[in-house]
C-alpha cells in the first residue's frame, strides 16, 4: 500500500515537474534528466506515514496521531484540484502536497513563514535533488532540536511583539517536566509540535486548534491517556477518562462551559508540572477562592499537611473532581473519621443540616409547581425559592470549615425560607376547598331542581292518562 502510494506520488511529482518544465521551456531538458525514474522512489520524498511518524532509528514511543491531523490521509485525494502551490510553500508544495494542504490551514502561512524557515532547502528549485540541497537544508529536524527551533523565533521579543504574543515559552518549557525530561534524553517527552501540531499549527483561539480549550484534554490525553495502554505510558492511572468523568470535564466538554478548567489550568501549559501536594489548595483556590479561605481556617488544613495528603484532592479527587452531594457527606468523611467518633458526628450533623434544607426546598418546589399549573400566583414564591437555593449554595463553601456554626446560618435560612414558601402555598392550595363546597352546593341545587321537574313530569303523566 505504502509502496504503491509512494510510487504513485513520485510518478505524480514527476509528471508535475515535467509539466512545469514544459512551461518553463529553458529548463525542460535539464529537469527531465534529473527527474528520477517512475519506478524508483525519490530518495528524499518521505512516505506519507513519515510525516507523522519518526524514523525507526530514533526508537521512541510515538504519540498516536491526533485526530485533528488525520484530515488529509490520502495525499492525492486531499489536494483540491484548483489549488496552486502557494507563495510560501513555493515549489516544496509540488511534491509535498499533503503537507502543503495542512500547512495552508495553519497560522504560519499567513505570516509568510515558509517551509525553509524550519527545513531549509531551496524552495525555488525545480528538481528534487536541487530542492533538497539548498542553503542550510535540514530535512526533518530532530525531536530534541524542535523546542530550540521554534524558540528561535518565538523567544525573540522583537519578533513576537507585533503579535502581542509572549516570548517566554521556550524558557518556561525548559523548566517544565516535559523540557527537563527531554534534556535528560527522554526522547518521547512532549515537544512543541506534539501539542501545537506539526504543519497545521493553528492559533490557540481557533476552535480547530489542538490547544483550543476544549481540545486540550484530548491533546494531553494522547500521551497521558493512561488506562494501561503501553503506547501511553507517561502517566499512571487514567487521567483523561477521569477528567471526562469529573465535574470539570463534564462542564467543559459536555456543558460547553468555557470557564471550566482544562489540564493546563492546573498543570500549566509551557511550564507543565504536577502541583505538589502542598500546592493543591492554591491551584484549586484560583477559582474556588472562597472555599479555599474556609478550608484554610479549618482544622483539616494542618492535619492534611501533617499527613502529607494533597489538600482538596483528598475528598474531591484530582482529575475526576466530584461535588460531594449533601447526602454523601458522612460517606466521604467516613474514609478518615469513623461514624462513632466525635468527628464523624460532626459530619453527620452537617449532612443532616444540608439534607434537611435541600429536602425542604424540594418540597416547596413541588408545591409551587403544583400551584403554577392551576394557575395560582407563584412569581413571588419562585423568587423566594431562588433565595433559599442561594442560601443552600452558600452553605456548601461553609462546610469546608467543618464548623457547624458556620454552616448552620445558611442552612437555617434556606430551610426557613423554603418552609415558609411551602406553608404559604399549602395554605393557598387548601384555600381552594370552597370550590368543592360550591360544587356540592351546585349539585344540591341541581338535584332539587331535578326533583321538582320529576314531580311535574309525574303529574303531567298522571294528568294525560286520566284524560285518556
Amino acid at each position, binding site marked *: 500500500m505504502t509502496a504503491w502510494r509512494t510510487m504513485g506520488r513520485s510518478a505524480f511529482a514527476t509528471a508535475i515537474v515535467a509539466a512545469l518544465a514544459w512551461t518553463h521551456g529553458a529548463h525542460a531538458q535539464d529537469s527531465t534528466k534529473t527527474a528520477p525514474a517512475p519506478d524508483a522512489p525519490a530518495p528524499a520524498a518521505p512516505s506519507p506515514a513519515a510525516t507523522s511518524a519518526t524514523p525507526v532509528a530514533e526508537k521512541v514511543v510515538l504519540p498516536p496521531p491526533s485526530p485533528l491531523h488525520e484530515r488529509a490521509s490520502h495525499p492525492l485525494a486531499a489536494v483540491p484540484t484548483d489549488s496552486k502551490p502557494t507563495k510560501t510553500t513555493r515549489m516544496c508544495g509540488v511534491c509535498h502536497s499533503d503537507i502543503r494542504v495542512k500547512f495552508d490551514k495553519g497560522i504560519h502561512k499567513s505570516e509568510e513563514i515558509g517551509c525553509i524557515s524550519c527545513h531549509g532547502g531551496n524552495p525555488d528549485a525545480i528538481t528534487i535533488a536541487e530542492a533538497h540541497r539548498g542553503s542550510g537544508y535540514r530535512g526533518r529536524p530532530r525531536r530534541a532540536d524542535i523546542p530550540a527551533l521554534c524558540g528561535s523565533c518565538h523567544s525573540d521579543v522583537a519578533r513576537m511583539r507585533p503579535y502581542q504574543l509572549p516570548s517566554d515559552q521556550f524558557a518556561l518549557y525548559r523548566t517544565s517536566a516535559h523540557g527537563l525530561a527531554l534534556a535528560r534524553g527522554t526522547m518521547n517527552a512532549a515537544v512543541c509540535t506534539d501539542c501545537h501540531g506539526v504543519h497545521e499549527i493553528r492559533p490557540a483561539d481557533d476552535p480547530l486548534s489542538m490547544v483550543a480549550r476544549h481540545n486540550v484534554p484530548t491533546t494531553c490525553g494522547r500521551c497521558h491517556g493512561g488506562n494501561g495502554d503501553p503506547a501511553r505510558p507517561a502517566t499512571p492511572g487514567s487521567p483523561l477518562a477521569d477528567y471526562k468523568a469529573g465535574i470539570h470535564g463534564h462542564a467543559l466538554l459536555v456543558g460547553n462551559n468555557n470557564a471550566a478548567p482544562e489540564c493546563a489550568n492546573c498543570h500549566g501549559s509551557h511550564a507543565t508540572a504536577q502541583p505538589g501536594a502542598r500546592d493543591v489548595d492554591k491551584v484549586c483556590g484560583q477559582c474556588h477562592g472562597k472555599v479555599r479561605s474556609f478550608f484554610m481556617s479549618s482544622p483539616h488544613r494542618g492535619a492534611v499537611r501533617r499527613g502529607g495528603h494533597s489538600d482538596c484532592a483528598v475528598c474531591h479527587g484530582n482529575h475526576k473532581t466530584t461535588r460531594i452531594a449533601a447526602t454523601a457527606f458522612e460517606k466521604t468523611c467516613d474514609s478518615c473519621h469513623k461514624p462513632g467518633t466525635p468527628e464523624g458526628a460532626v459530619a453527620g450533623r452537617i449532612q443532616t443540616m444540608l439534607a434537611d434544607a435541600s429536602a425542604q426546598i424540594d418540597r416547596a418546589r413541588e408545591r409551587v409547581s403544583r400551584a403554577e399549573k392551576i394557575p395560582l400566583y407563584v412569581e413571588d414564591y419562585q423568587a423566594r425559592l431562588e433565595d433559599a437555593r442561594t442560601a443552600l449554595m452558600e452553605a456548601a463553601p461553609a462546610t469546608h470549615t467543618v464548623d457547624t456554626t458556620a454552616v448552620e446560618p445558611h442552612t437555617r435560612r434556606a430551610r426557613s425560607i423554603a418552609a415558609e414558601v411551602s406553608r404559604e402555598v399549602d395554605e393557598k392550595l387548601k384555600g381552594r376547598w370552597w370550590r368543592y363546597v360550591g360544587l356540592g352546593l351546585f349539585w344540591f*341545587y341541581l338535584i332539587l331542581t331535578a326533583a321538582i321537574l320529576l314531580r311535574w313530569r309525574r303529574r303531567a303523566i298522571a294528568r294525560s292518562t286520566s284524560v285518556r
Partner: protein
Amino acid sequence: MADETADQERRGFLKWLTAGFLALWAPAAGIMTASFLKPPEHGPRVGERMIRAGTLSSLAIGESRFVRHGLEPIFVVRLADQQVMAVSAVCTHMQCILHWNRDNSTFLCPCHDGVFDKTGNVLSGPPKKPLRQYSAEIRSDEIVVFT
C-alpha cells in the same frame, strides 16, 4: 269548603315557593357573570412596586427624569448630590401628564396651566392637591422608586 281553600292556598304557596326556588338559577348565573366581569384588582405586584429609574450619575443635580410606569408615570428629581425625590407626573386636577420646566424647576400642566414646584406642591392654577410623592432610594448609583 274552608279546608279546600286552605288546601288551595297551601298549594298556591307551594307553587310560588317552587317557582321562586327555580327562579334562583337566574340570579345565581347573573351574580357569577357579574363577578366574572368585575375587573380584578390589577394593583402592582410586589416585583412591580420597585421601579428602577436609571443611574444617579446620569442625572444632573436639579434635573428631572421622566419614568414611564403603568398608567401613572413618575418624575425623579435629583435635589442634591445624594438626594433624589420621586413625584407622580399626573396632574391632580384632571389627570393630564405634567411637563418639566427646566428653567425654574417647576412642573407645568399643559391642560389648564397648573404649576407645581419640584417637590410637588401647588404653585398656581386649578389643581388643589399636591402631587403624590413616592419614596426613592439610591442603591449603588441606581435610583430605585417604590410605589
